[in-house]
């Protein structure tokens, strides 16, 4: 495993010099700036709770996109170009290659995310009428977990495919099935399951189950579900000073009324599974893949 860092460092260097990577990370930065700074330009009273709910809704679409772009060519690109023949002609194992790619691309995404959050905290502390800085902690934790999960998905897909085009097809497919299509009941997987169980079989399963399925099949939805509950609770408990006590209590009750399997802890557990499984499956396919 000592070669992990050698591969990861070169890959990091290679990615850092890529125009594509700079392009998507600029997009990341610009959109983050718009979210953090934009509201201060149009409103006198800005609080972090409002901003962070925008972060979780935009992040739902944006973070997976950027992480997939950062990772989908990690291995498939090397297989198509032939650089993988160098990599594996040296005393590197295929396991090291998969893990190193995850480390370098994940590190890249994490570095960009930290930078964005430092900017966000500085803007909130200096510009917002109500900074509510504590809310940034769970937001950063969830966001960091999501980007790592999506890099794992991207590298996993990349390890399973032999060409750039099939890696791209896999990444695009994953994105659409787990995010936009997942939000449209008539074409989403939970929607289809509901049609079978409730409409055809008359089982009358409750909505929470389908919400769980929606989050379980999609890291991005699990991120949103988990982050929103955590930040809402935190906001109601610590910051919502202008709300009457009964309103606060009923809002908290509404959150707590959700099924246990929609709790943030379950969402984190689901994300942790997503962190490991794609890499493991990718490695399992790449381990015996025929190269050259």
């Amino acid at each position, binding site marked *: 495993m000592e070669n992990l860092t050698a591969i990861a460092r*070169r890959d990091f260097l290679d990615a850092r010099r890529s125009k594509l990577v700079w392009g998507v990370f600029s997009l990341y930065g610009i959109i983050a700036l718009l979210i953090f700074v934009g509201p201060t330009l149009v409103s006198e009273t800005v609080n972090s709770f409002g901003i962070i709910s925008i972060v979780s809704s935009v992040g739902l679409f944006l973070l997976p996109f950027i992480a997939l772009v950062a990772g989908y060519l990690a291995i498939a690109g090397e297989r198509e170009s032939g*650089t993988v023949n160098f990599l594996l002609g040296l005393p590197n194992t295929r396991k090291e290659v998969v893990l190193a790619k995850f480390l370098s691309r994940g590190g890249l995404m994490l570095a960009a995310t930290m930078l964005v959050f430092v900017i966000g905290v500085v803007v909130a502390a200096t510009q917002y009428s109500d900074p509510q800085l504590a809310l940034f902690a769970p937001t950063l934790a969830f966001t960091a977990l999501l980007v790592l999960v999506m890099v794992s998905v991207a590298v996993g897909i990349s390890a399973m495919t032999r060409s750039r085009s099939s890696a791209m097809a896999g990444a695009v497919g994953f994105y659409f099935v787990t995010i936009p299509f997942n939000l449209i009941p008539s074409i989403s997987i939970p929607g289809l399951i509901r049609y079978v169980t409730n409409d055809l079989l008359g089982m009358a399963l409750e909505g929470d189950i389908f919400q769980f399925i929606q989050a379980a099949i999609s890291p991005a939805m699990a991120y949103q579900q988990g982050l929103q509950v955590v930040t809402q609770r935190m906001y109601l408990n610590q910051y919502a000073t202008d709300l009457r006590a009964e309103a606060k209590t009923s809002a908290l009750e509404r959150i707590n009324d959700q099924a246990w399997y929609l709790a943030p802890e379950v969402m984190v557990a689901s994300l942790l599974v997503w962190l490991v499984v794609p890499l493991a499956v990718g490695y399992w396919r790449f381990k015996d893949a025929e190269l050259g």
Partner: protein
Amino acid sequence: MAPAIRTENLTKRFGDLTAVDALDLHVEEGEIFGFLGPNGAGKSTTINVLLDFLRPTEGRAEVLGYDTHRDPIAIRQRTGVLPEGFSVYDRLTAMEHVEYAIETKDATDAPRDLLSRVHLQEEAWERRAGEFSKGMTQRLALAMALVDDPDLLVLDEPSSGLDPTGIQEMRDIIREEAERGTTVFFSSHQLPQVEAVCDRVGIMREGSMAAVDTIDNLRDDVGGATTIELEVDPMPAVDALDLTAVDGVEHATGRGDAIEVTCSDPRAKVDVVKHVDAETTVTDIVSDETDLEELFNQYTSGDGVDRSDREQEAEVSA
């Protein structure tokens, strides 16, 4: 001591296509082995099995005494590889490539020494490899292969993209490595360079080894005729020389101020020169041994060498 490379009944099929068919290959430690054959004969497939890029369908392969699939890391730690169909990392410099290989192999080489050894011009060392020509890329790849003074060098078509000077330099490096005791295994479909450096050659044809031997022995086996051309002054009447009376001479013809003599036995050449010199003055001698290319074509086309294969073909057509 274990042979550097040994395959036993090595077979690799891709669906219906048999790329390598029951190949038994032995490469001894310290020798320079030329792995020849036309494109599609199974050379690269064999090399890719040796490097564990591909897994054998049947049979097995050992490199430096290690099984290629069970101990690929032990093999790569002691092997330098110039792979086929590779490309370099476009955005890393030549220096960074070599440093990468050194770090991965835990070696202590100085990157500058390796880059100058392969004659990559110094201005290119800090440039990104994406801007390199094919020849420069090939030199860089060779520098990476030479890291840590490997016990075995596996070079797949090393001279592709090199100009004649580059090919000469590549040959020199192969010889230097062999002198240090490195086994060199390289594939090629370009014959002259193989002829110049190899101790032994193996000729692949349709997934099997058509012949393995030294160049000289192969030439004898094929029984290729040798021609000798004598420039003479004055030009005598060729028929009157009666050269076919000399042992081992097949025929002789006159062309301008030269006599061309074809000998079935190379030893006849000296007698031919003596015989002609007795009648007139020989001003120049050009001896032309069986061209390796011709030899190669004979082996790979199946004409007159591999009888068992011809019989098979006959059976099929009958």
